[in-house]
């Protein structure tokens, strides 16, 4: 016997966060899934996929090969009209293929992101961070922390790693930002995807002809070897470029806003010289801050029994990662930011299953360096506006702050 609401009464998703609680999940979603880890919601196209909020249920489904990311299957719960409209134009990639096809693509992308390779980047990341902070401190007060540090740091890093010219950053940042808005028309989606894709295709062809010492050249070499097409290589490059700057940038801006509200937690991060404490603090910030809050999209390929419900073959599934990070069954007092939380690393901020974030180790090292360096070098850092004047990215698939005016 199911106590799930009839489909006709499924509430609309996405839902707004509560006014004054920019760091917590939408209250209506919490009410909907208060006593069960999944429920039905209604999305932009009128369909009623399942939304999954429980930590255990998410891990079960994300690890289940019957749960697919194949966005071309009928009934797939696309993020918005634009994503649905461009589906035939997106080549196969790690984002829309299942194992074993996914494994083949993923292993072409993972080489630059091993722990060893990322650890070797620490001096470079530290220097970029110091240079950006020098420039901010030499400039006028107040400064926008997003423009001064949060956005340029990960963008510079991923550009250098991939071999994408940093001087093109305005172009790809703007198009990427439009592409991940909640509401994108078919026309705009085709335009931004077309522009970015064309740019990457050109770059891949250039790297195939004149290889350099960067990750995009390694990917282009696989085109020359006949392993993948230019379109597939461009999609890999585009995925890494967008995911590589947008998410970390939001983590830097949003964490700074949150830590300035919790001075005792900020002090812990600022005053420690223990790398384990810093690493643990970053895991807690990844857990506490819901950067990926639109819900990862999946579709059931077969009937799946979970938590007393049956997800039927062909039904959409929305895995709302942020809610799992606030699951009290796993994280006691889940709404408290506790940088010493012992099991913070169990968060789902990078997802779970075979699609878990490729660049997560790079993100971790960037965040470990930037938080420590910022609060140590600028101990008097403070908001230059009232908290309720901060503009949060409620309308984006990746949550964060649009700007963060700070002074010191």
């Amino acid at each position, binding site marked *: 016997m199911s106590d799930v609401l009839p489909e006709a009464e499924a509430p609309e998703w996405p839902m707004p966060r509560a006014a004054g609680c920019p760091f917590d999940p939408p209250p209506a979603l919490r009410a909907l899934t208060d006593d069960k880890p999944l429920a039905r919601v209604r999305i932009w196209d009128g369909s009623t996929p399942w939304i999954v909020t429980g930590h255990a249920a998410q891990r079960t489904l*994300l*690890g289940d090969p019957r749960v697919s990311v194949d966005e071309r299957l009928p009934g797939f719960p696309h993020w918005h009209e634009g994503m649905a409209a461009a589906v035939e134009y997106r080549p196969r990639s790690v984002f829309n293929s299942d194992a074993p096809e996914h*494994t083949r693509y*993923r*292993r*072409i992308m*993972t*080489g630059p*992101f*091993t*722990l*060893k390779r*990322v650890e070797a980047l620490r001096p470079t990341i530290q220097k970029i961070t110091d240079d950006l902070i020098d420039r901010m401190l030499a400039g006028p007060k107040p400064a926008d922390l997003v423009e001064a540090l949060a956005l340029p740091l990960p963008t510079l890093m991923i550009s250098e790693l991939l071999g994408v010219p940093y001087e093109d950053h305005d172009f790809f940042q703007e198009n990427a930002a439009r592409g991940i808005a909640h509401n994108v028309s078919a026309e705009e989606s085709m335009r931004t995807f077309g522009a970015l894709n064309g740019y990457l295709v050109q770059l891949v062809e250039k790297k195939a002809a004149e290889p350099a010492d960067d990750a995009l050249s390694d990917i282009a070499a696989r085109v020359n070897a006949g392993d993948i097409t230019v379109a597939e290589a461009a999609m890999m490059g585009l995925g890494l470029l967008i995911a590589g700057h947008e998410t970390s940038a939001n983590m830097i801006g949003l964490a700074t806003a949150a830590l300035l509200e919790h001075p005792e937690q900020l002090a812990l991060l600022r005053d420690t010289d223990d790398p384990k404490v810093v690493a643990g603090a970053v895991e807690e910030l990844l857990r506490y801050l819901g950067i990926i809050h639109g819900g990862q999209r999946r579709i059931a390929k077969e009937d799946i029994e979970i938590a007393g419900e049956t997800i039927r073959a062909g039904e959409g599934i929305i895995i709302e990662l942020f809610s799992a990070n606030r699951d009290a069954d796993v994280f006691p007092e889940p709404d408290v930011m506790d940088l010493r939380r012992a099991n913070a*690393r*169990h968060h789902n901020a*990078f*997802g*779970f*299953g*075979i*699609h*878990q*974030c*490729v660049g*997560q*180790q790079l993100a*971790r090292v960037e965040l470990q360096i930037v938080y420590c360096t910022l609060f140590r070098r600028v101990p008097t850092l403070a908001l230059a506006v009232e908290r309720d004047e901060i503009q949060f990215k409620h309308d984006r698939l990746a949550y964060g702050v649009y700007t963060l005016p700070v002074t010191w």
Partner: protein
Amino acid sequence: MKVTVEQDKCVAAGQCVATAPDVFDQRDEDGVVVLLTEEPAADLADDVRYAAAVCPALAIHIED
């Protein structure tokens, strides 16, 4: 404790190496897991269990 890994399932997230670097490593070319020791010392057991729990591909198996 006896540890086994499934390289075919591994997605090179790097979680095991970050958690238990004395037991797990990654292949240079694609980050796929390399097991350094099948029978880790007792003082590493907790880290290895944590590594298995956070492995997103469920590719680490432990027999006690």
